[in-house]
């Protein structure tokens, strides 16, 4: 279509935009790292809480299960706009945690300063919080389903051998749940990478945000460069996930995929 429209590629427009794109790429990497690490940790905790059978945790289980279901059903872009515009105090709370980064500014060069400014901005905090919460809900759903799919026979076999509760948890429940959850969690991580450009919508100067600003009118060359950067990141990630899914360690027919991403 581009060829027939007579488009003439002019890659020189990238020269001016490259520094900003580089800073944006670093911000995107930080955003994805924060979202995957914090979101996964929170999601695993929530998933364990929802899947647990402990009577002591029962009062927390139902609210947590409801929260997971509701948040997983909200599109990430809606969640992002809601957090940024409707709950600014939540974003400010996270921003206050990141503000110590600003102390590095006197020792930083121009490039680093641009990155630090982006990381300590409210749009970044809103994005990290909203996308982290969205990922946590998906990971929690995966962990809950994975825990439920561990066959009772495996636990019985461990109990029949005289395993204590702790040994059973360590040697059977946790490894078997992890095996079943791993493909779903990896897919959720890929989804988190794909959600990352949404941060530009609220003004984060991530890769997409920087490209949009730097390019002004959003030339096709810059759009192509941004698309290629994400493709370069995601194609190996999806190949890696397929290899992990086929590995002997994950040889199971009942692995869990995130409900919304299946």
């Amino acid at each position, binding site marked *: 279509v581009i060829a027939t429209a007579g488009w003439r590629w002019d890659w020189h427009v990238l020269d001016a935009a490259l520094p900003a794109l580089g800073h944006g790429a670093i911000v995107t990497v930080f955003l994805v790292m924060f979202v995957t690490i914090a979101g996964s940790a929170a999601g695993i905790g929530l998933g364990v809480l929802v899947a647990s059978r402990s009577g002591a945790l029962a009062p927390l289980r139902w609210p947590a299960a409801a929260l997971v279901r509701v948040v997983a059903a909200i599109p990430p872009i809606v969640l992002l706009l809601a957090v940024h515009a409707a709950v600014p105090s939540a974003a400010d709370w996270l921003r206050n945690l990141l503000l110590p980064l600003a102390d590095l500014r006197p020792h930083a060069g121009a490039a680093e300063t641009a990155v630090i400014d982006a990381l300590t901005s409210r749009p970044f905090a809103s994005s990290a919080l909203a996308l982290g919460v969205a990922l946590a809900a998906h990971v929690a759903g995966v962990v809950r389903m994975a825990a439920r799919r561990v066959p009772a*026979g495996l636990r019985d*076999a461990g109990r*029949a*051998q*005289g395993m*204590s509760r702790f*040994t059973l948890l360590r*040697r059977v429940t946790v490894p078997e749940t992890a095996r079943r959850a791993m493909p779903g969690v990896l897919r959720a991580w890929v989804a988190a990478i794909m959600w990352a450009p949404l941060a530009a919508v609220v003004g984060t100067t991530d890769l997409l945000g920087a490209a949009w600003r730097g390019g002004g009118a959003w030339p096709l060359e810059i759009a192509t460069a941004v698309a290629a950067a994400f493709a370069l990141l995601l194609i190996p990630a999806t190949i890696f996930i397929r290899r992990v899914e086929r590995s002997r360690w994950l040889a*199971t027919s009942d692995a869990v995929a995130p409900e919304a991403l299946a």
Partner: protein
Amino acid sequence: MTTILRARRLVKSAAGRPILRDARFVVRQGEVTALVGAPGAGRTTLLRCLAMLDPIDSGTIEFGGHVVVDATAPVSRWRGRRPRVRCNLDNVRRQIGFVFQTDSLCVNRTVLRNLIEGPVHVLKWKRSEAIEAAAELLGILDAADLADVYPLDLPPVRRRLAAIARAAMMRPDLMLVDDVCAGLEPEDRATLVRAVQAIHEIRNLAVVFATRDESFIRESAHRVCTLADGTITEVATGIARGETPAEELPEEPAPMRVAAAAGTLRR
């Protein structure tokens, strides 16, 4: 022969349906008991209760002369449950090997690693010792080729053979074998029966084998118990090997002929 396990007046129901009603059962050291009964008679439930994998509604279970489960005491008004017997059930379960009808092996571990899991992490054996013992046991069972194979790569009979070996690895005093022969061809059933016989002969442990395999009942069982309507209705004692009963069992009905027990299998 010393009594290793004694269950009295076992009552168990599930989903409002009575499964065990006043079931009584005795297992003696070194004795092989065939537990027969129609499908749904409650054999698996009885074995799971004896292995303390499922709670009982009423009755007592003694193991090694000690009461380990007592569900006869009244429910405490304050605690909402019966007072517990001071007994670590994990320690008791270590002395009872259980072979499930489905193999219940970890599919991402080789058979050898499945076998050493209990000895290493429960009995705290050294890994090298456990591997040596597992290799020896597999050799005895004519299954040395299973060691480095994953369960999913094996046919059902070999997986069940590995499950029998896993239970035997814990060196139990009593082995409860659920109907591992179910759904197998006669030659495969014979393989599993031979494995159980071999383990019994080496360790002289007590075996309770829920089975409908007539050859096992005729050749190996010292006693045959028939479970019907949740109750052990008939017991044949000392028949399979032409032995006389070691002692009379006052709580059980009179002995019966093995042919009668075999007859119940074909119903």
